[in-house]
């Protein structure tokens, strides 16, 4: 808790204004308005189907939003392809199912994007990749293939792969939900280190222990709306809304 007060929260980096999104008849997001600041760690939680994953997927436009505005790092997200490329190069994403490329080696999984998108030399890309593997703790796995790694190692690899593009923002969509309990800790450690290094992070997660340690702000989603938001102390000790109290009583 003490670390957080030393961190400098920067200027606004993501703005969402009355964002809605429907899938057929089902309305997943009913008007999300929120601001996220640089170096901030925001944790989104709530019951399933509340629109948490949909929301963070609209930020890098894996799901195009139906109405409202999303501005990431000063660029508005719309149909414009150039804008999209810009945004995606600044936003990294880690998935619940890892989504590693099984036909590429561990090292190649990390280097493929910097090489093909940023045009780095093979040698430079390899160096960056090895540093990242070191950072997430699996440097010795460089020449293996994702299928040969454990779940926790795979997700750490996925984090390294996203970091290789040097994004300003990292999105985490329930990164530990598909992991066995004994492997959750190693992934959370990497995420904690990332947060302490000053990365802007938005995490959808159920790991409340980790969240309380690391998050600057919490957003509680329910039925497509932000029901309540606040710091850890505010939300957990003094939840204002009934629904927040109900949900917290169920998970804590």
């Amino acid at each position, binding site marked *: 808790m003490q670390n957080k007060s030393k961190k400098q929260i920067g200027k606004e980096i993501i703005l969402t204004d009355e964002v809605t999104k429907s899938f057929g008849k089902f309305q997943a997001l009913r008007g999300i308005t929120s601001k996220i600041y640089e170096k901030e760690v925001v944790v989104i939680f709530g019951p399933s189907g509340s629109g948490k994953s949909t929301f963070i997927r609209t930020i890098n436009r*894996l799901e195009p939003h139906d109405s409202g505005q999303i501005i990431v790092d000063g660029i508005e997200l719309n149909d414009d392809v150039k804008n999209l490329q810009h945004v995606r190069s600044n936003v990294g994403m880690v998935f619940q199912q890892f989504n*590693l490329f*099984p*036909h590429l080696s561990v090292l190649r999984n990390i280097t493929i994007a910097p090489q093909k998108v940023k045009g780095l030399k093979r040698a430079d890309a390899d160096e960056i990749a090895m540093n990242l593997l070191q950072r997430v703790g699996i440097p010795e796995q460089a020449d293996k293939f994702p299928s040969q790694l454990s779940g926790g190692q795979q997700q750490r690899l996925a984090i390294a792969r996203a970091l290789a593009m040097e994004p300003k923002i990292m999105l985490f969509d329930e990164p530990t939900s598909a992991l066995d309990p004994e492997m959750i800790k190693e992934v959370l450690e990497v995420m904690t280190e990332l947060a302490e290094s000053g990365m802007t992070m938005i995490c959808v997660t159920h790991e409340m222990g980790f969240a309380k340690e690391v998050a600057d702000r919490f957003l509680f989603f329910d039925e497509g709306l932000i029901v309540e938001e606040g710091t850890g102390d505010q939300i957990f000790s003094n939840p204002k809304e009934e629904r927040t109290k109900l949900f917290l009583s169920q998970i804590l």
Partner: protein
Amino acid sequence: MDLFVNKLYIWSRSQKNRNLLIQFFFLIFISLFIYYLFTKAILLDMTLSHFDSRAGFGISHTFIIDYTSNDSRWVSYFTGVINTIRVCIVAILFATLLGTIMGVARLSKNILFSTISYLYVEILRNTPLLIQIIFWQIIFLKLPRISEALTFGNTVVISNRGILLPNASSGDNGNIWITIIIIAVILSLIVSYIINKKEDLEGKSIKLFNFKLNGNLLSILLFFTITITTYFILQKPFNLDLPSIYQNDKGTYLQSGGFEFTPEFGAILFALVMYTGTFITEIVRGSIQSLSKGQTEAAQALGLSNYQIMTLIVLPQALRSIIPPLTNQYLNLTKNSSLSVVIAYPELFMVSRTIMNNSGRALPVFFLILATYLSLSLVISIIMNMINRRVTRIGT
């Protein structure tokens, strides 16, 4: 006596022994069956000795072998086999090409394109191949008569007797030119490899006067430059054999020259390609679709372009699940080529049938047919297995 029964009882309780007993009875049963077949078969002449005698029938398509009706039946059979191989290789190539294009089209966002693919598959897959063969035969026969044949300025002759395309035969410096072509191919492959490797190691592509050099494009350009310039330098390395129509003294129209593409060959080729193409389309489509959506999402999140996602992530993975069902389709195509008996394209089945009708000894000929088709299937399976192993060997 009691001891014996006891021992037998214990022996029969063991699962292993029971299995042995079952198999023993099966063996007896099968042996009896085979014995019965044997007694019947003895009455037939089971040798292929009649194959050594004169065939006595003509074959309309001869390729490589110069067959006449005076040759032995073995020669006629081999001519048939060659015809089968000929149509199968060409059909496999084109069917794969068509199937891949249509498979990708089916997933395209361009509605026109994907509808064409959808209609193609739904209509041609559910119509029997035999009907399609006859259809193409009728179409070919509806081409203009030879006296009014289509010739696009003396280059091709299209009539209901077939299509004649220009052929090339080796001229003065023909051999030299062919060698140069081969060298040019190797050179362009090397250049392409070098440029791609450099691009990989050095990062964003090599620039020449601020223009990005694409390795593949460059090597193709190189190939054509070499071949065309040497063509002019060598002065007529090959003779163009243009097809033409003429009338003989009786006034009948005849055609000569060029490379002949008969209606029969055309019909069976088109039918096989279109029919098998539908199955290949479904295989390709299923393969690409079965890739988990997460792969494309992860690639998109990393900022890879659509083209890059297709070539680096989707296709390499899809290729793995394509090869086994594709092999199956190739085997089906090979066996389906036997249907050309209905339009008198003399591939191996039709030749065998003629022999059977002429000589009356069906069973040994049938074994020969069986052996031939099995060998063809084996060859195709082995080749595809080698390709499969290379593709599933992980790595970029």
